[in-house]
């Protein structure tokens, strides 16, 4: 099968083009010699199947950051039949040298001038044919976002792949990936002939937004307000949806599952309905909130605001030994810690990267959010609940900052960095729809992999030996609880929760599902029963512990694979555990001492 690789700088819409080309059928591939995951998809182009690989964004082929080394290593080690180079037409002056560099590889090449609509709006005129002649390959104006020029691009890619160019040998490729001062002169000459840019750029909308958004005084308050507004919106829209999903799942249980599974022997019925189903249904009812939450995150991410957040927070973060990019990663971690950890690949300095990776797992991810939304609803008044949740986010930040500050003392580091502030953009409905589908898909994957197995195991542990009272001290879970009691009692955490916390290590969603299994109820009944099992102080202590203790299994695996250091991974697992215990202990004992 022929292989097509997508190459381009960051912020060029390369991944949007990839998604459009492949219809989001991408899978993470396994590449010998390349240690990181790359997205690839097989598509039908013309009459043959072609494998399309989305390479990470890069600025040039010199390998300054980890991502660029990945691209180099990929091009050096994997056979590629053609390259599709995605350029941001609005910044053609900066992007052309990369395209020229790539033509030196001698592979069939197609240049896609993306965001051509945006370039035209800026008054930029680009002579695509002149560029094509200068580069010696086809140059096609496209808009990956709106799909303009997409058919022509597909056709050009098919032609490029059909072109029986001899595959250069690996040694040849390697020698061609060399230095390139001449490239810039060549690019300048070509640009002078083909690109006309208006001398004075009209002050555009982005500049006007930035005057407020990046204001020295108002910038940070505006950012916090935007964040709070986002959460408010997610819950206002999410709560009714959550009720609807819970109602549907309850209907399935009473109308379908109970009659169908009724004839099963009691232990099996309990395992399937009261174990697996109740656990999963409790977690699943939170999916609408999580999808909305990810949509809001995607909106912020695609809008170009993230690099502004890095700008606003850099002064604070530099005092903690990190930088603005680290703060952005923490925010990304609100969604899921795993992609945020992978995002640190842009950092080159190892100490800086590791320190950032150490604080990301403390970021309150969406799986933990489900647990907290549930517990705050069960234990606090509707008026108090949002503030309790806000306090947990605050604790998450403080824990990250304290960790960074301590880590920075142990291993101070500084890395020069530069970030682009792209113009503000609005994502299309299509992009939004794609994103939410990916999140639902991700949840279903986790559900089948971890959650069902986890909650089922919790059911078994809380019901065996079978002559013991369910959830009682004679069960396996009860025995484990008694064993952990000296550690958990000072935190005000009920010993029956020990087994729940144990499984929370696998995936934090299990905490909620396991709670349903443990209490033996779901829906509103569960909410009420939890309220009778612990008071507000105990509940908050539990939430503090769940927030900070060991990251989930996927996060630990990512930490290990990204750093390839067992010592670091151990620190990243043990430190949060200590922090969690210390924070819960201080809070619970302090609150009790004050008479709460």
């Amino acid at each position: 099968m022929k292989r097509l690789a997508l190459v381009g700088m960051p912020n060029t819409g390369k991944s949007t083009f990839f998604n459009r080309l492949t219809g989001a059928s991408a899978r993470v591939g396994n590449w010998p010699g390349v240690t990181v995951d790359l997205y690839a998809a097989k598509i039908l182009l013309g009459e043959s199947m072609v494998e399309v690989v989305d390479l990470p964004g890069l600025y040039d082929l010199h390998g300054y950051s980890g991502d660029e080394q990945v691209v180099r290593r990929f091009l050096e080690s994997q056979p590629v039949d053609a390259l599709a180079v995605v350029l941001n037409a609005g910044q053609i002056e900066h992007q052309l040298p990369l395209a020229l560099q790539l033509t030196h590889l001698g592979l069939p090449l197609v240049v896609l001038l993306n965001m051509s609509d945006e370039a035209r709006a800026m008054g930029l005129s680009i002579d695509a044919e002149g560029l094509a002649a200068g580069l010696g390959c086809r140059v096609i104006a496209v808009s990956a976002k709106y799909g303009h020029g997409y058919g022509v691009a597909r056709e050009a890619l098919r032609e490029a792949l059909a072109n029986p160019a001899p595959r250069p040998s690996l040694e040849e490729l390697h020698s061609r990936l060399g230095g390139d001062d001449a490239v810039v002169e060549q690019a300048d000459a070509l640009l002078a002939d083909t690109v006309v840019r208006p001398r004075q750029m009209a002050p555009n909308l982005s500049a006007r937004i930035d005057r407020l958004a990046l204001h020295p005084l108002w910038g940070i308050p505006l950012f916090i307000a935007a964040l709070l507004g986002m959460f408010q919106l997610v819950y206002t829209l999410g709560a009714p949806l959550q009720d609807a999903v819970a109602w549907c799942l309850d209907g399935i249980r009473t109308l379908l599952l109970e009659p169908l599974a009724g004839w099963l022997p009691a232990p099996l019925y309990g395992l399937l309905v009261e174990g697996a189903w109740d656990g999963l249904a409790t977690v699943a009812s939170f999916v609408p909130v999580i999808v909305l939450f990810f949509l809001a995150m995607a909106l912020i991410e695609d809008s170009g605001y993230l690099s502004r957040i890095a700008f606003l927070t850099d002064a604070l973060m530099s005092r903690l030994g990190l930088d603005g990019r680290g703060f952005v990663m923490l925010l990304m971690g609100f969604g899921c810690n795993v992609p945020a950890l992978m995002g640190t690949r842009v950092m080159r300095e190892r100490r800086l990267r590791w320190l950032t990776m150490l604080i990301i797992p403390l970021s309150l991810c969406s799986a933990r959010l489900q647990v907290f939304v549930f517990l705050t609803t069960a234990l606090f008044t509707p008026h108090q609940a949002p503030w309790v949740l806000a306090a947990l986010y605050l604790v998450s930040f403080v824990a990250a900052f304290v960790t960074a500050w301590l880590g920075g003392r142990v291993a101070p580091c500084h890395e020069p960095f530069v970030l682009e502030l792209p113009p503000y953009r609005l994502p299309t409905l299509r992009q939004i729809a794609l994103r939410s589908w990916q999140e639902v898909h991700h949840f279903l994957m986790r559900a089948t992999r971890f959650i069902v197995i986890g909650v089922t195991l919790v059911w078994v542990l809380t019901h065996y030996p079978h002559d013991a009272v369910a959830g009682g001290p004679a069960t396996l879970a009860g025995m484990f609880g008694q064993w952990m009691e000296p550690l958990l009692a000072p935190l005000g955490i009920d010993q029956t929760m020990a087994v729940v916390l144990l499984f929370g290590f696998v995936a934090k969603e299990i905490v909620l599902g396991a709670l349903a299994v443990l209490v033996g109820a779901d829906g509103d009944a569960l909410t009420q029963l939890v309220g009778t099992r612990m008071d507000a102080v105990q509940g908050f202590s539990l939430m503090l512990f769940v927030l900070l203790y060991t990251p989930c299994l996927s996060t630990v695996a990512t930490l290990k694979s990204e750093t390839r250091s067992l010592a670091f991974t151990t620190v990243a697992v043990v430190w949060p555990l200590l922090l969690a215990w210390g924070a819960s202990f201080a809070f619970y004992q302090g609150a009790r001492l004050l008479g709460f």
Partner: protein
Amino acid sequence: MSVVTLDTLSPGHEATIESLDLDAGFRQRLQALGLRCGRPLSVERQAALGGPLVVRVGPVQLMLRRCDAHGITVRLSA
């Protein structure tokens, strides 16, 4: 027409890049983003509390820390 380091400029200043005295890898990155000797740039804004600068080079806006900008020498436009 004075030669100064980039971190001393205030928002609104325009200048031409004279030299980049930075580590090789970082210089390479800046050059790929269009910060090359002889190119004009302008300082758009600066963050509070000694935070970073926003510099415009051609069509691109970049955020640079002041300590890193210290390694960039520029000639102020009249």
